């Protein structure tokens, strides 16, 4: 029984309750989106002097924010899967390394990690290059965006590892046993049987991670990446209008996160119907 019909009954039951939370959530989301976009449009059209200027000034930063988030998240999905499988490995060395990774990352603030990758890591590489007499390493120059993505991926990869681990562990043991007893290797069973089921379980927390990553990407503004937050700061330092700048930047972030949340719900719903 346990293997056959897990999440279906409760979820279907929920859908049949009139006025259940899902449609209520859609309403709230629409209202909020209309409110936020409306506010932004109102500000920009009625007071184009600071607001339209700010929008034009930070728009390339918006692109950087989206780019950094998207690239990081794709890499996080891959690193997280490797880390998650590592945390479940029977091999002690693999388990030890992945556990060490997760514990180190969890114990250090993301801001400090980003600063380390940008300011300290290149120096480590350069010193190493001098020590080993490898000129290419000694001349290593950090690209801010690359280092920022590295920092975000390193940190979020660890969190994602734990999500993958929990997702894989939530699949009943019998699924793996059945797959193995049909002659599948561990990796075949993971790929065809366990992960497709685990992904569905972890979609909601993964969506949350995406939104958290989107918001935390604002931290890369301290390591010379011209994202939306940094562009906002640049505009403010020349025009001295903090209220206008940060209100608009906040609204722009809100639009991004609202759309992301919607997308996550949509993907969740789609994968559920597929069952």
């Amino acid at each position, binding site marked *: *029984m*346990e*293997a*056959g*019909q*897990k999440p*279906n009954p409760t979820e279907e039951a929920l859908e049949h309750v009139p006025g259940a939370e899902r449609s209520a959530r859609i309403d709230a989301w629409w209202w909020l989106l209309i409110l936020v976009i409306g506010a932004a449009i109102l500000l920009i059209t009625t007071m184009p002097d600071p607001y339209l200027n700010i929008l034009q000034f930070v728009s390339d930063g918006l692109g950087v924010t989206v780019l950094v988030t998207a690239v990081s998240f794709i890499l996080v999905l891959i690193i997280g899967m490797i880390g998650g499988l590592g945390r479940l490995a029977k091999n002690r060395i693999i388990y030890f390394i992945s556990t060490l990774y997760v514990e180190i990352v969890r114990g250090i603030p993301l801001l400090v990690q980003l600063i380390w990758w940008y300011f300290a890591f290149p120096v480590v590489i350069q010193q190493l290059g001098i020590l080993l007499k490898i000129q290419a390493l000694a001349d290593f120059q950090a690209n801010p965006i690359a280092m920022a993505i590295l920092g975000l991926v390193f940190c979020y990869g660890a969190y994602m590892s734990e999500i993958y681990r929990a997702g894989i562990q939530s699949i*009943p043991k*019998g*699924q793996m*046993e*059945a*797959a*193995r*007893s*049909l*002659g*599948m*290797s561990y990796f*075949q069973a993971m790929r*065809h*049987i366990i992960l*497709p*089921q685990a992904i*569905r379980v972890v979609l909601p927390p993964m969506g949350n991670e995406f939104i958290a990553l989107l918001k935390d990407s604002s931290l890369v503004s301290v390591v010379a990446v011209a994202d939306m937050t940094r562009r906002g700061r640049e505009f403010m330092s020349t025009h001295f209008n903090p209220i206008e700048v940060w209100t608009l930047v906040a609204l722009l972030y809100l639009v991004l996160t609202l759309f992301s949340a919607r997308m996550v719900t949509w993907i969740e719903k789609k994968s559920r119907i597929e*069952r």
Partner: protein
Amino acid sequence: MAELIIKIENIYKRFGRVQALRGVSLDVKKGEVVVIVGPSGSGKSTLLRCINRLEQYESGKIAVDGIPLDSTKNINAVRMEVGMVFQSFNLFAHLTALENLTIAQRVVRRRKKEEAEKTAIALLAKVGIPEKANVRPGQLSGGQQQRVAIARALAMNPKIMLFDEPTSALDPEMIKEVLDVMLALAKEGMTMVVVSHEMGFTRAAANRVIFMDEGQILEQAPPDKLFSNPSHERTKQFLSKILSH
């Protein structure tokens, strides 16, 4: 009679402090139907799971169809030849009944999609539920799920079928439909090792009944002989409990 297909020699297996198997040896011939009975905790399921190496054992030897279970390569080779049916069905929840039957054929046996589906459709018809091909396990009754699980194992063309309490999780009215499939298999000459307390099935199909207690085989005999005239006191006690109803 026929040649040996499973050879188990002196297996010891422990779970932590519990000694699950203490020196079990058992030979199964090709085409034989062996039913293992015994009180819970006697090691019958563990023994069954050792045959396709779902459980590791500390010492002893098992060879299936002449292949010793000693390397990863051999274990996978053996698993292809040994079908396993579980108490809790363990159908792949994200796949339809048909896909449950085709996935291992395609991934492990490397069969083409059309070929795998042909085999699968024929097997679903054989277990009596061709109309459920495109239904997911969650929408099937327990008896239907177990029949799909049997068909899934058969799709790999195994030489041996292992059944681990296949009817214990079923409602009474569904037990028969599963046992009918198993009986038909036995009649076709499939080698079967079955852990079960279904006495009707055992009487009708078993060549040999094994009685296990505390990790050992206490005695073995054809069903009539064992049920009517057990030689051990422990067997008598156990049988009096399960035969009385």
